[in-house]
């Protein structure tokens, strides 16, 4: 019993649906993907350990496999051909051809907290390996994982000697206080959280974050279930700086969100399913992730993504190699491969998020056509001026983070 965690298929299906497959999903993947999910009994089979005994493993155990790499990533976060990530011409296909390493690519990283509570904590917290060799948590989760070392470090240092393309990492990412030199993680993609809306439907331009509380949008506004985004943007709207640790300020922002929710201004807090709500008119405006809106406009043009004049939140999802991973050399090959600007450009061209790899802009120009247009996109390649208006949510002490998360969950429903 000791290593079980809640694992009700119906519960998982519901969560998966609630997050609408993933945080970075594309519209073309509708709920149909869930068709195969059988409904389990509705009993919540909650069964978990009450003992915390763990083995005395205290060090990094890394496997030496170099024929196979297992990756857990967010859904629709890599290029596809005809709806397949492994079809001819895709990054995965090319990588397998070039290196002879087989890739098992799972799109099961749906939600940071969920993945933490279901995969990272119950296994790494007891000194046991997890399935993937590479997982792609969001920066704040990566920071938490890198900081955890009981019973042994949860994340192993990257074998940088095997990743020469580490030099292509955009230098800002090497200055993170929680991982100086980017020795434990290398970003996969980055993005901006701002506001998405259709000016024709709202009838006015949204400039300030506080425009989202305009009476004309009463009950038609969506917030994100991601605390850092919703609270961060609200803080910016209130003139507070989320990039400085400010527990009081975050609570003030929660007060405001709570009040707006109680007043019926905010319809829902969502994961990626906000795209559907935006498309079907349930939301007139909502907090949104930059790449999604670029994608959304392919299907239904007219939506605008704005970084509020007070500022937007920036984030990134980053590759880590968990402790006990069995295929470290293969994982290093993968990371090295996607840090080649040409390969990174292929992914950027498809997913339309901000690449952490230097030289992608030039590669996109070389690709020509629509890809070359992307090279001019202010959302994919924010200017220095725009970058000044982007904030990264500052890490807070654990107790404060948990208090905020609890309060936010209570509000967001």
């Amino acid at each position: 019993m000791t290593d079980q965690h809640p694992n009700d298929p119906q519960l998982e299906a519901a969560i998966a649906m609630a997050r609408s497959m993933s945080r970075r999903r594309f519209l073309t993947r509708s709920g149909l993907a869930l068709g195969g999910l059988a409904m389990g009994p509705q009993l919540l089979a909650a069964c978990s350990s009450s003992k915390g005994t763990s083995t005395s493993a205290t060090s990094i155990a890394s496997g030496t496999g170099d024929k196979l790499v297992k990756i857990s990533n967010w859904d629709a976060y890599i290029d596809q051909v005809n709806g397949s990530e492994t079809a001819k011409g895709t990054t995965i296909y090319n990588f397998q051809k070039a290196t002879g390493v087989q890739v098992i690519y799972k799109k099961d990283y749906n939600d940071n907290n969920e993945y933490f509570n279901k995969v990272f904590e119950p296994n790494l917290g007891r000194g046991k390996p997890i399935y993937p060799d590479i997982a792609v948590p969001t920066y704040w989760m990566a920071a938490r994982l890198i900081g955890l070392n009981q019973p042994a470090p949860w994340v192993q240092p990257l074998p940088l000697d095997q990743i020469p393309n580490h030099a292509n990492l955009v230098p800002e990412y090497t200055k993170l206080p929680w991982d100086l030199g980017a020795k434990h993680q290398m970003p996969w993609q980055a993005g901006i959280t701002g506001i998405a809306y259709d000016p024709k439907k709202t009838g006015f331009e949204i400039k300030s974050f506080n425009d989202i509380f305009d009476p004309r949008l009463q009950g038609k506004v969506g917030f994100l279930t991601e605390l850092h985004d919703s609270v961060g943007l609200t803080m910016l709207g209130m003139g507070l700086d989320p990039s400085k640790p400010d527990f009081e300020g975050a609570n003030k922002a929660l007060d405001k969100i709570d009040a707006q929710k109680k007043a019926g201004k905010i319809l829902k807090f969502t994961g990626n399913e906000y795209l559907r709500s935006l498309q079907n008119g349930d939301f007139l405006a909502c907090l949104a992730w930059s790449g999604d809106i670029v994608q959304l406009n392919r299907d239904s043009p007219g939506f605008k993504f704005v970084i509020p004049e007070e500022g937007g939140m920036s984030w990134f999802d980053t590759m880590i190699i968990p402790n006990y991973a069995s295929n470290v050399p293969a994982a290093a090959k993968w990371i090295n491969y996607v840090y080649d600007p040409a390969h990174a450009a292929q992914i950027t061209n498809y997913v339309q998020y901000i690449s952490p790899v230097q030289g992608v802009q030039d590669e996109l120009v070389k690709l020509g056509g629509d890809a070359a247009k992307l090279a001019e996109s202010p959302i994919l390649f924010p200017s220095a001026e725009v970058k000044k208006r982007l904030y990264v949510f500052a890490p807070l002490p654990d107790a404060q983070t948990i208090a905020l998360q609890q309060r936010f969950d209570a509000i967001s429903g």
Partner: protein
Amino acid sequence: MAAGDDTGQRKGRFAPYGLLSPGIIWLVLFFLVPMWTLLRIALSHKPNPYLPNYVFSWRWSNFSDAVDRFRPELLRSFEYAAIATVLCILIGYPLAYYIAVKSGRWKNLLLGLVIVPFFTSFLIRTIAWQTILGSNGFIVTSIHDLHLTGLSDAIGLTTRGAILNTPQAVIGGLTYNFIPFMILPIYVSLEKIDPALLEAARDLYSTPARAFWRVVLPLSLPGVFAGTLLTFIPAAGDFINAELLGNTNTRMIGTTVSQLFLAESDYPTAAALSFIFMAIITIAVLIYAKVLGTDELST
């Protein structure tokens, strides 16, 4: 002789236990053991929020904290489930009556139609309602085009012209999803009623309405009772409808528990909340059984 009789009796004495053992093993393994684990977790605390270590500490305050934090969700769950159950009876009883008594050769087809939705996943059906009830769905656009928004708001069908993401949608979804569990037991109990009883009532100069009220309804109550339990209990604990069809002010207890488990990793509070929920359900069912009388269930 006497010894042989004894053996026979002894064999006879143990046979029922032998027959019961699969059920008992099942119950112990999949009910009592998980319950025990859940109870231990409910009385534990987690010293480090990010490590999977639970320390059993007789922490009864988990229960009071859970009630303090989630009182609105608890009340709302029972409120929505009660409304949905009543709606299920109001819609399901006439339908079950029609199928059992009046449908003739269409009976099997109609029963089949009641069950057909089960061929698709519960989740998919609920997601389908998102499209139907959404702001661009035909229901809302029709109401809007007919300029009936004011009227539909006034009668409580819509809230500010919307159906999706309102309490109405959540209750509607619960009703829709659980109504077969109401129809089928009522159908079974109505089916069993001997038509001779109604003939006797007619012979004794009873009006059809009176015969229904005095004969059919009482005899079908066990079905209503069973249907109510099958509807109310899962509806109160449901977390799909509130999550998919509701808004931030319609969260129910099932969603709360799943969030505590998955988003907050707060197993002790989640377990305590599950126990509180179970206790309330048990008490409610006992009271209900007392009022309606469970002995009728055996008939």
